[in-house]
């Protein structure tokens, strides 16, 4: 009963924190475009807050740079349970074009924190991001919430 109630609440109100760990900004802009009335992310109960301390979903963009190696883990630790990590774009997956000789990126993100879902594309279209977040977000959070620590 209580679990069911929690599920409903968790599914219908998702707070998102956007973390740019060293990308080109394109994916962040597409996430901002998601807030626009055309895509209207908030109609699905998803709020982009950029505050890790109240985040349910961490959206990670960008290949991990030198500064972020420690800080990413710290931010992940600060987010309360249950939490889901979704990566947007190719940078967190493979480092994209930056991951070549002479670079200072340390992709992939999954080396540092556990990743639950990924959205490839450079950058993905807002509709692709929206479809992926809606497909994975609410259910994953509810499922994580049911696990006993």
């Amino acid at each position: 009963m209580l679990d069911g109630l929690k599920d409903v609440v968790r599914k219908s109100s998702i707070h998102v924190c956007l973390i740019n760990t060293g990308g080109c900004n394109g994916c962040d802009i597409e996430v901002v475009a998601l807030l626009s009335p055309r895509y209207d992310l908030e109609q699905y109960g998803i709020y982009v807050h950029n505050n890790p301390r109240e985040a349910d979903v961490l959206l990670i963009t960008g290949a991990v740079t030198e500064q972020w190696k420690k800080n990413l883990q710290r931010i992940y630790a600060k987010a309360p349970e249950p939490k889901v990590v979704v990566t947007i774009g190719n940078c967190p997956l493979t480092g994209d074009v930056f991951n070549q000789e002479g670079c200072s990126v340390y992709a992939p993100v999954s080396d540092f924190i556990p990743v639950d879902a990924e959205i490839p594309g450079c950058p993905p279209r807002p509709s692709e991001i929206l479809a992926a977040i809606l497909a994975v977000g609410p259910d994953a959070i509810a499922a994580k919430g049911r696990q006993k620590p």
Partner: protein
Amino acid sequence: MILPIGPIHPALKEPVRLKLKTQGEKVISAEIDYGYVHRGIERVMEGKTWQKAIFLSERVCGICSYIHTQTFAETFEKMAGEKVPLRAQYLRSLTNELDRIQSHFIANSTYFKALEHETLFMYMLHLREPVMDAIELLTGNRVNMGWNVVGGVRMDAKEKHLNSIYQIITHLESEYDKYVQMFDQGPLVGLRSKDVGKMSNEDAIKGRAVGPIGRASGIKHDVREDHHTYQDEFDWKVIWRKEGDNYARTMNRFDEITESIKIIKQVIENIPPGEVRKKIDIPAGYEEWRNEAPRGEVSYYIESNGNLIKNISIRTPSIMNIDVCGKYMLKDVATVADAVATYASVDPCVACTERVVILNEKGEKREFDGLHKVKYLK
């Protein structure tokens, strides 16, 4: 008291650290730390052909990605001493202005978000979406377009594409005025914007402010004045203002959108037929080229050995603009909320800034002085 903001903070979209020195609610001075998104793009570009490097230059910045590829390609074209076909020049200007419009919309919407004026924030984003559609229609991608190559553009624009872009632009023009009025005459927005974050003309020159930020403080300079296409083909004027506050910067961007719409209409009305791409052989040599990005002047310095890039240096506008913001605007600000709004009003693009660290002969960090050329680090 030192109030740190960022790198991940509700007020910021990008990782940067603001350290505000406060006295009560008043902000006395500020310090801005970057370095969170340094990826080493220039180092990666070295020893690569332009075909590969142009996609890296596109990913210097995601908001103004287009102008980077154009400047990159034009540097090589200048090195070869050739100009691209006129139709390609027109198409480049068209995409450049579309990109400028969407960038200014997102800059202004971020400013309104910082003011917590959500209505205008939403309206700006809603106006921006058709422009993104136009860009996608023309180039095939929304953000990183992959549209420029050395020697022209990759695809020709068909008549139907130009027609639908014209429709989008005329619709935008008719819609857009009332939102500018909303900002221009709204008393509450005006109260938060006028006389906040003032930067005088002397400070702007001393701090090497560029782009809309410099022009809002009375520096009447736009790099497009020196560009051959804009000089010869289009009728337009440089937008500038004297006030130097948040209001002036935002209005400056609004007025530039109007000017961009004017240029786009001229492009579509007068576009000549012909080829859009020609083969250009790149000689060995060194060349530099400047262009007007949405945020100001972007410069490329490229040394090539004929095939591969030997050395490259990119200077982006945001580094100067964020610098002057920290130094001159965030000085004696009345409230912390105003400080955040002022920071948003300079349209900071942190992904751009993470280029190089300038060292002096002894290996110590040197203060970045924007107008001097960046010397290569041997």
